[in-house]
């Protein structure tokens, strides 16, 4: 196990390095600079700014310098939001996205798995169709439309919630609904599909034939096996959701990391782009790592072994 974790960790570092390099050069290949605007700074001031942020150096030199800085844990200062450190920006904006995202994931997994299980158990019956139509709606309505509908109906017309803001617990309800609709739909459909497969597999038939208790079959076999694809999906989805949805954050006025990231790209705020990319990369890799562990827990046939075929 230790060897496994160590090798994973090593791979992660290598991947991270490749990710940093690829993003750095990609970002530099895009036209623009952090100081552009409808009114341009004078050429002298622009030259001075470029120098102060090392942007006048050759790209490769900027790259090695950047690598040196992050090796010392220095992610630099934002080039747009003056004198704010990238680390501060990430910590400040990740909080809201994380809180919102975790709630949305929990809601999505519970509701999605339940819907999917119901649909599978009542295969080709009314409940199945209803659950699936419900979940298709979750996919078919774009999140920005759903968010806007929720805002209009539940906030502006019914007056139950605030249109925007992120202060009271009640303010979480609408964004969570908008954010979890699509994962719910996805999870429900995955669960249904793989549960159906398991329910019709021979070992379940055998278990039934052996007269095993229904609950035991469900929990020991069906759910455990049927939930595998969900586990695969939930890992990256978690990384995706907690790193923030631009659309949801923009519409509900939440100061999250998703909005921050898109803004940093629009502004060519290089240090922030890199910082969030690295942060996101680490999160995603951790999520994938957890997924693999979760696999091994859910399915004993998969062995955790980095070296050999497993």
């Amino acid at each position: 196990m230790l060897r496994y974790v160590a090798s994973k960790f090593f791979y992660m570092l290598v991947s991270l390095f490749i990710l940093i390099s690829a993003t750095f050069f990609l970002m530099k290949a895009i036209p623009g600079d952090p100081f552009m605007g409808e009114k341009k700074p004078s050429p002298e001031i622009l030259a001075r700014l470029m120098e102060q942020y090392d942007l006048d150096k050759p790209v490769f030199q900027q790259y090695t310098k950047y690598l040196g800085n992050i090796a010392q844990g220095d992610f630099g200062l934002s080039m747009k939001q003056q004198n704010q450190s990238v680390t501060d920006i990430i910590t400040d904006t990740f909080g809201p996205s994380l809180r919102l995202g975790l709630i949305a994931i929990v809601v999505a997994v519970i509701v999605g798995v339940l819907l999917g299980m119901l649909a599978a158990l009542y295969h080709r019956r009314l409940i199945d169709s209803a659950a699936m139509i419900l979940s298709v709606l979750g996919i078919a309505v774009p999140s920005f439309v759903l968010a806007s509908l929720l805002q209009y109906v539940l906030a502006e017309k019914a007056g139950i919630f605030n249109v925007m803001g992120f202060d009271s617990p009640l303010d979480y309800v609408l964004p969570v609904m908008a954010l979890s609709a699509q994962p719910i739909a996805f999870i429900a459909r995955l669960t249904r599909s793989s549960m159906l497969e398991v329910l019709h597999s021979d070992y379940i038939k055998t278990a039934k034939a052996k007269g095993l208790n229904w609950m035991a079959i469900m929990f020991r076999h069906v759910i455990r096996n049927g939930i595998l694809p969900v586990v695969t999906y939930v890992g990256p989805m978690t990384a995706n959701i907690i790193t923030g949805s631009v659309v949801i954050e923009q519409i509900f006025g939440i100061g999250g990391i998703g909005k921050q990231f898109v803004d940093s790209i629009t502004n060519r705020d290089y240090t922030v782009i890199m910082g969030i990319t690295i942060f996101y990369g680490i999160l995603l890799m951790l999520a994938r790592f957890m997924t693999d562990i979760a696999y091994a827990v859910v399915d004993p046939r998969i062995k955790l072994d980095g070296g050999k075929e497993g």
Partner: protein
Amino acid sequence: MKKHKSLLLLMTLILAIGTALAGCGSNNNEGAGSSGNKPKEQVFRMNLASEPPTLDPGQAQDNNSNTIINAVFEGLTRKGPDGEEVPGVAEKWDISEDGLKYVFTLRNDARWSNGDPVTAKDFEFAWKRVLDPGFAPAPPYAYQLYYIKNAEAYNLGELDDPDQVGVKAVDDHTLEVTLENPTPYFLSLMSFQTYYPLHSSVKDNDKWATKAETIIGNGPFKIASMTKGQKIELAKNDQYWDHQSIKLEKVHMSIVNSSATELSSYRNDELDYAGHPVGNIPTDQLAAVKKQMPDELNIKGISSTYFYIFNTTQEPFDNVNIRKAFSMAIDRQAIVDKITQGGQIPAFGFVPPGIKGEKDEFRKEVPDKYFEENIDEAKKLLDQGMKEKGYTTLPAVTLIHNSDDNHKKIALAIADMWKNNLGVQVQVQNQEWGVFLKNRSALNYQVARSGWGADYNDPMTYIDMWTSGGGNNDTGFKNEEYDKLVKDAYATDDNAKRMELMAQAEKILVEDNQVVMPIYYYSNVSLIKPWMKGINIDFKGDLDFSRAYVE
């Protein structure tokens, strides 16, 4: 088997109903609060479409930053309700005969929010800090101080000694300013953020402007809290010298970049103010807003121009007649009536209304009759231009704009007008902001959207940008006569002469060369709740809520 399935179904149902009930439960508790009408305290709630990139007056360039800085700091003068200069930190001032020397006398009771007195040194320090060539990051608005003697030379590193810059604190209450040229609008610059004073504590703290606790201001409000990307809260500053005139106890600014959300919150009484300059009202809802809340809707012409620029170095727009033809073949009234719908005024000149001329507004003294819309004439000019260039068919034309709903609509409508009126097929291309700016300044376009707002209240802020090789002249336009007119206007202290020179320059720019194709003069469209009084919007469209109150 069946029984167990039902059990599961039951579980799900309970969960669903539970959630629904929880929703309803909280509805009863807090529902009433959120849709309460008039706020019970003296609070002003507004929205910023994006987070202010800085709260350092020396660095700020954008509307969002200014809106906060103007509330937290105060310059030597400030703007009165009609845009006139009224005493701020300075209680009086003397201007020398030749217009080159200003002596400001500061009031005794001006204080920083921590109780320290505001002195002339704080001004000298702040101005020289912006001009300091070693200051990082280099403030882009340093040029706003170039009217001061030797300021430009010091900022550009041609002069090492800061003492030679024409600003001097004679004593704690006297500030002496010497100018490079007589500048009739210099006094109005004293209420511009780059000229605000700074507390000496900022010297040793690079990050002072990023935290509420270290922002020490001298204006009517102080920063109470900042939540990144979400909200900024201001509270009344009791140390402010004129605090008796300030009635608001709190200002709450949300940060939401969605005009639909902003309007929705306004309707839901979560905001007291919506719309320009720091927010927006969706154009698609303007018609409904006009009908439903005519008394709350405020439309005010402001000094900004929306226009297209032609790349005079690229075919086919290197021909003046073709440029004129394109400019004459659109229907500006239809654009402002049907598309922007916010009371904008069709533009036929470049300097917008609201800018001071010799005695009255410049636009009233010099009417913008540089050209007229005329489709037949446009067709003739197009034919003539094509003959001059030897075209049988016009080269393909692409119009670029940056991604934005309004820009897109206007571009599509104009392209459609060109197609119908001139028979020219123009491709509209929407580009990402950075890519767009880069293409525009590299002259890698044919027609591009543009917009310009005033830095100060004088036509010069619109005229001097078009000189040959000017930093913001993205058209390739070079004209010696134009350059000379601008230079002469700078040199003279005769205001009538200046206005005349600038009027001539504008004629060269628009009538003779049609480098720019003016479309409309902006308006400031906003919604103000009936209980909110005393909000002021100035000629530039800057929002001043410092003397506002809830009635």
